[in-house]
């Protein structure tokens, strides 16, 4: 039998939706990462966060590395941004009762995608 995903363990969409919205709120308020979303349509932004959280928790969405790269490579995302988002993710998950061990698993999943999301270093 397939192993239970974190998505299932934490109550499926009804619970994960709350994580998504909290994550979305925090991101918009963040002065570090928020500006990336300045000109993004709300429904696209929500769509993106829903898929993002679902895929990290093993829910019904997954992005291939190539897709992730395509979605982010036009943005000037630095390691500092990635780290900030990682912190936001960690806090949001912890606030919603995700066990520390599981938070670590999610963060590791996230970390694995760093190279697809953070742009190659360039000289300003």
């Amino acid at each position, binding site marked *: 039998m397939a192993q239970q995903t974190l998505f299932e363990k934490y109550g499926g*969409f009804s619970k994960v*939706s709350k994580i*998504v*919205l909290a994550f*979305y709120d925090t991101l*918009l*308020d963040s002065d570090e990462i*928020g*500006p990336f*979303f*300045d000109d993004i*349509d*709300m*429904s696209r932004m*929500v*769509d993106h*966060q*829903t*898929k993002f959280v*679902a895929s990290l928790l093993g*829910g*019904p*969405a997954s992005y291939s590395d190539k897709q992730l790269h395509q979605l982010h490579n036009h943005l000037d995302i630095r390691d500092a941004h990635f780290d900030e988002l990682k912190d936001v993710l960690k806090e949001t998950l912890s606030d919603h009762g995700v066990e520390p061990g599981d938070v670590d698993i999610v963060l590791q999943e996230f970390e694995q995608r760093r190279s697809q999301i953070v742009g190659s270093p360039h000289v300003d």
Partner: protein
Amino acid sequence: MSIEAINEQLLRAIGVGVALLDRASLNFHFHNDTFEEWFGAQVGVNSLPDVFEGLDVAALNAGLDESSRYTAEIKHKKKRRNMVIAVEFTAASEGEQQLVVLVCQNITRIRELESMIDSYSMMVERNTREIKREKEQVEKLLLNIMPRSVYEEFKAFGVVTPQLYDPISVLMLDFVGFTDMVASADPSVTVTELNDIYSAFDRIGEQFGCERIKTIGDAYITVAGLPDPMPDHAKAVANTAIRFIRYLERRNKSHPHQWHCRIGLASGAVVGSVVGIQKYVYDIFGPAVNLATRLQEFSEPMQISVQDDVAKTLREEFEIDSLGERDIRGFSTQEIWRLNDSKRELSPAKA
């Protein structure tokens, strides 16, 4: 504190944006704290069209003139959050003064939730489609190894009850010198050719209502009368057998590898069932299967040996010759027959 003062406090603190406008100029007379929180401190200075970007002022005026009411949804960007606000205008008057009461509800969260549900349901629907496709492929695979009616039973009950089919006819085909072929030629080429031939056999058998049961290496077994009874089961396998040989003869003319087969035909009862728990195989068991195997061994290359009972049925329509009485291992001594392809000898017109 007077009632008026309490009312004003409430109006200011309430989580709904409230404002009072001049009907003619659409300038603000009053707005509460919530309204200011959403639209900023400049609200009191600017007139309404400057605050609500994208508001259709002409439609607002028309609505107020006709029904004293107008509702709309406006988008407003606060910091970087896109707010969606449902606004309702109601015409009012205070003495000589014409006013408009404006009530604003923040429906941003509702819209965000709707977007999230859209996003999620699209993911789920896509997954559902994928699962359905996979299920169809599994079904197709299982239908390759068992008849549909058996599959339906298997799906409904999880098990298949062994079932007796009587009478049916069995066609057993075996290739001559297959082992040597595999050893001498490139085995993968041989197996690829075998696959082509089996596929052709499947199509030929299908035309006559035969159901292929299995192949074991170079042996091919197909039956008629299973799972649905068929009155002409013997004729069906005879027709199939003749066309197998025609197919191989034609194929041999254009291919470097020569394929020769022996065929045995027998009728009788068989029991059909799914065997195995993890690795299912649909198989048939019974004397007819064994007899067809033995008869096949009596055949010369590219010939068809037929059981006595079957020969009696075929006699009217097919050309058969006696091969005399033979001892058949596991069976009584009995006369066996050879089935010939009468196509070339007979004139096309039927007698």
